[in-house]
């Protein structure tokens, strides 16, 4: 049923990114014999797939534009960051705004997460590699969430988060690492 989406992979310029995404998702959940095909059944994966196509050549852009009419992406999942590192894993992903300056490799985001500028015109957060943002985590403004850090559920981050630490609460404080 999701076979018509496979040509998108073939015309994509950044097949390397998509391959890394598929490998990451396949390590986080059970997939079928053709991992890409079973993942395309997930709306949150399709959102990421379309993001890779949109930012990899005009053929991919046109394909994504048409495909998303029939195979809808996840409800209210806005991937506004252009440079998202390979292997981003999105769990559920409903009503999530990812508008960071850059996102590193192998990050994990849950649903209801907001990563955006604090002011309409202000600076945006920078997300390092291997960062995990749990459900309803909010990261605002010109801050850096460094490599391997974790932001707990419903935490609000308005300051830098050092590498490999866990922060929680409103406003977020270090609880581990």
């Amino acid at each position, binding site marked *: 049923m999701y076979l018509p989406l496979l040509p998108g992979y073939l015309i994509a310029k950044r097949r390397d990114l998509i391959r890394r995404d598929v490998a990451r998702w396949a390590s986080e959940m059970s997939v079928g014999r053709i991992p890409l095909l079973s993942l395309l059944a997930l709306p949150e994966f399709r959102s990421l797939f379309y993001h890779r196509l949109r930012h990899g050549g005009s053929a991919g852009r046109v394909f994504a534009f048409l495909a998303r009419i029939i195979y809808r992406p996840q409800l209210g999942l806005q991937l506004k960051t252009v440079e998202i590192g390979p292997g981003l894993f999105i769990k559920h992903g409903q009503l999530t705004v990812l508008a960071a300056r850059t996102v590193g490799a192998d990050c994990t985001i849950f649903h209801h997460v907001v990563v955006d500028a604090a002011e309409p015109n202000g600076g945006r957060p920078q997300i390092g590699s291997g960062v995990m943002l749990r459900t309803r985590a909010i990261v605002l403004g010109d801050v850096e969430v460094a490599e391997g850090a974790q932001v707990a559920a419903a935490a*609000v981050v308005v300051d830098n988060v050092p590498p490999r630490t866990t922060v929680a609460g409103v406003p977020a404080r270090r609880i581990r690492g």
Partner: protein
Amino acid sequence: MLRTPLLLGYLVAGRRDLISADVERWRREQNLGDRRVLLKLLSQPEFRSLYYFRLRNAGSAGRLFQRIARVIYRGQTTLYLLASEIGPGLYIQSGLATGVGTDTTLGANCTIGQHVMIAHSNSRRAPRIGNGVRIMAGALILGDVDIGDGAVISPGAVVLRNVPAGATVEGVPARQVET
């Protein structure tokens, strides 16, 4: 342009002054330049939601127009603007999972972040928001409360009591941090 038909709404609108004030505010916040600003803004679903709110609340021509227009040019998904009154120049950031509930009133030039909820709680009366209030992402303002002019509601705050003018509140439940 794809969204040109939506401009007709502006022509039939009862309160063009409100729409003009919104456009001016969004133009300033987004550095949109001087040309075809309304058309540029109408490509953003969160602006369209506000535009439809203006049309819905002023005149039957506007009301009819927005009912048809919103089928084709959808507003932001999960953005609910049900307030009884919204002052000129409201700015909405992204508008995902954002609700301004019934009976709420908002002053002029407010700013609303992502995942914000302003609504009744158990009380019958809804929040009353002053002018120039900034409500940041994830904040909840619930029940019979007054938010004074120029107040700042920090991200993730839960406001259940009145906030004086010019104050900044943060935390759960929200407390004042500076004046």
